[in-house]
């Protein structure tokens, strides 16, 4: 099990960071928040062209770069740090990941290359009205029109679902999970943007009314595939959260060094310095859990589901604690619209809930530990 990043990985991180510093400053996030699309197509294109980001973890045969969860984690962390607005998590992590684990080899060869190149975007629709994130929440049963499949029902919380060219939909066939591809312009498909707490990450609600769908992965164990994808998504999202938390921490430290009250920098008061020390500990512990889970994914560790749940729970809590601390250290100014802290606060809040709360993952973690023992 590896415990630190290699020099190559650190260099890769530096490249990603430089790119995002240049192309995704907070002002860009504000512009994206206010835009209809929610992201900047030019930056999306360069993300693929300059960094090959969308295919970092995909096979070279599918136009990817053939790296693993560790490198994907570096990208996610840097995107969280920059608060990049882009359909990366929805398309590259969730949708492409689901294809990798839920589609046949031929389907992957057909569908992954345009996702790897960023030329097309897909979104994964699985959560329903009950708001359950795991497979147990998927109840929509696919219907048949002769040889063709059709979908009727509603999916919610579809990450980056509005700007997706294609939708991947998880539904049930004879009780088992099955994966479907629905074209963005399919008939009977209605998508609408949900009003969200975090305007830097778009969510959609999707209604299917006798919508034609193509079934994928007919010979694949989609239940197992979804379980794997879910672990990958947890670890990727946790990495993103760590990136945001590190940024907020660094900015709070910097502010505490400069801000004077009572004739001293506020960072010289133990009330401030001890919170910042505690938050650093939270973040470093969560980061260790995220790195460990990423390595476990790359090494196909049988306990990976426990580690992924741990990474998500710890990162979510560290992220929220840091976001609250960042506002607190900045004082009133940290609560104003014009100050950037709230952008990361809202992301931290949405990431705490997205894919399940820390409490839910603690329960899943313990269940996974028990199952593994």
């Amino acid at each position, binding site marked *: 099990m590896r415990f630190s990043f290699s020099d190559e990985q650190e260099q890769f991180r530096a490249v990603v960071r430089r790119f995002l510093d240049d192309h995704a400053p907070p002002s860009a996030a504000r512009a994206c928040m206010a835009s209809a699309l929610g992201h900047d197509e030019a930056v999306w294109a360069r993300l693929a062209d300059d960094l090959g980001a969308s295919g970092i973890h995909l096979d070279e045969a599918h136009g990817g770069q053939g790296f693993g969860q560790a490198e994907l984690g570096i990208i996610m962390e840097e995107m969280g740090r920059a608060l990049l607005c882009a359909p990366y998590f929805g398309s590259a992590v969730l949708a492409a990941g689901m294809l990798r684990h839920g589609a046949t080899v031929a389907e992957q060869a057909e569908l992954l290359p345009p996702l790897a190149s960023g030329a097309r975007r897909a979104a994964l629709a699985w959560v329903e009205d009950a708001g359950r994130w795991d497979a147990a929440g998927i109840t929509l049963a696919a219907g048949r029109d002769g040889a063709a499949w059709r979908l009727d029902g509603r999916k919610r919380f579809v990450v980056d679902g509005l700007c997706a060219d294609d939708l991947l939909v998880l539904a049930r066939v004879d009780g088992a999970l099955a994966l479907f591809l629905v074209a963005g312009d399919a008939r009977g498909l209605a998508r609408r943007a949900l009003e969200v*707490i975090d305007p830097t990450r778009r969510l959609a609600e999707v209604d299917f009314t006798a919508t034609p769908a193509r079934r994928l992965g007919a010979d694949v164990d989609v239940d197992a595939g979804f379980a794997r994808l879910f672990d990958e998504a947890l670890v990727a999202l946790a990495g993103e959260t760590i990136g945001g938390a590190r940024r907020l921490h660094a900015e709070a430290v910097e502010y505490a060094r400069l801000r004077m009250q009572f004739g001293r920098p506020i960072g010289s008061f133990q009330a401030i310095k001890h919170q910042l020390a505690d938050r650093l500990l939270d973040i470093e512990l969560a980061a260790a859990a995220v790195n460990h889970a990423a390595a476990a994914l790359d090494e196909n560790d049988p306990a990976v589901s426990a580690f992924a749940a741990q990474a998500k729970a710890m990162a979510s809590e560290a992220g929220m604690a840091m976001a609250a601390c960042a*506002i*607190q250290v900045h*004082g*009133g100014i*940290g*609560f104003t619209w014009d100050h950037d802290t709230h952008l990361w606060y*809202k992301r931290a809040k949405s990431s705490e*809930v997205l894919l399940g709360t820390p409490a839910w993952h603690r329960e899943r973690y313990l269940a996974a530990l028990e199952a593994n023992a």
Partner: protein
Amino acid sequence: MSMPDEHTVRAEVRAWLAEHWHPEQDLVEWRGILADSGWGMPHWPRAWYGRGLPVAMSAVVDEEFDAIEAVGVARIGIRLLAGATLLEHGSEAHKRRFLRPILTGEDTWCQLFSEPGSGSDLAGATTRAERDGDDWRINGQKVWTTSAHHAEWGLLLARTDWDAPKHQGLSCFVIDMRQPGVEVQPLKQMNGYASFNQVFFTDAVVPAENRLGEIGDGWKIAMTTLAHERRGADALRRWGQAPARAGRIYDQLRAEIASVLEPYKWYPQRAGRVDLALPRARETGRIADPAVRQELARLLMLSSAAEWLARRARAAHELGRPQGPEGSLGKLAGSEVARQAARVHTLVSDAEALLAGRDGPHDGTIAEILLSVPATSIAGGTDEIQRNIIAERVLDLPREPRLDGGPFRDVPRNPERGR
């Protein structure tokens, strides 16, 4: 002078109300009559719109007003803080000029104390007041000013002496907000509301007679205002609702309350809306989850205990005992309650906590809670400052070494901001 007993006071106010009160008169006119009678602020001195009664007797008078739903003087918002401050520190002329329109509600006031560079450290204000013939010229910036955009008058704390120690170089002024040198800009919060304003002064003018107290008394005077502000939450709860009755004066009162309360409309969300926690846990069925139940129980225990602690403080106060630590602890308890409420609302709402506005749970209220609670531990004195106050003033623990003594000019401070 012997104090009248409760029975006498009741009889007097009842008789007076029977003669003067009716709900179809004009709000300002009625309040004028009320102010002049002294029944509007019965614990104020007779010379100034009061009847010189003890504070406890004010409650008796309030009961008689409540019994017939008679409208009182204007008591919510910043104006009465200004009134109390002027009553204590103003000259005869100030009181004559300012008190009556405060009580009638004709004049709106704002408080100009906080600055971008001096948040927790209020005495570090750097807005400057400089002599200019008989006038004072004001330059600088204030922030967190509620209602500045429709205030006629401002209570201003400004530095008049840079060579004096920090707390001694400040003076207090009454400033006319409707003049060219005063610019008011709304300050939008992360939750989307713009409850506060920034106020910029560029050679704004205060005539000499509008200085309050002596030069250098500013800190002492501001402390009076803040002491009244700490009791302000009670006033808001008490006077923030008009009777649901017909009558010209009630319509006018409702309009006034709506206008004054506008900046405060997200305050219940900031406090965590504990009232929604149990009902929503039931609605969503999340009450069946034992982990949710633990956090929900923590919240309801904490919040009810905080309420009892506050009542204990009030009960002690009403018995005339010195206020215990409860008063200073309430603010800190409120932060804890709000944080725990946000935790519970998140757990209970689960995935729905991602949503806001019409898509959000409880029509967006939950989202507002989640985005407002972080202000609780900052506004009105940060948690850190509260802990210092409790430790130093309640527990009598030794103060920290001070590094801001000597001439204020030499105290390390934040750079002043330009426009």
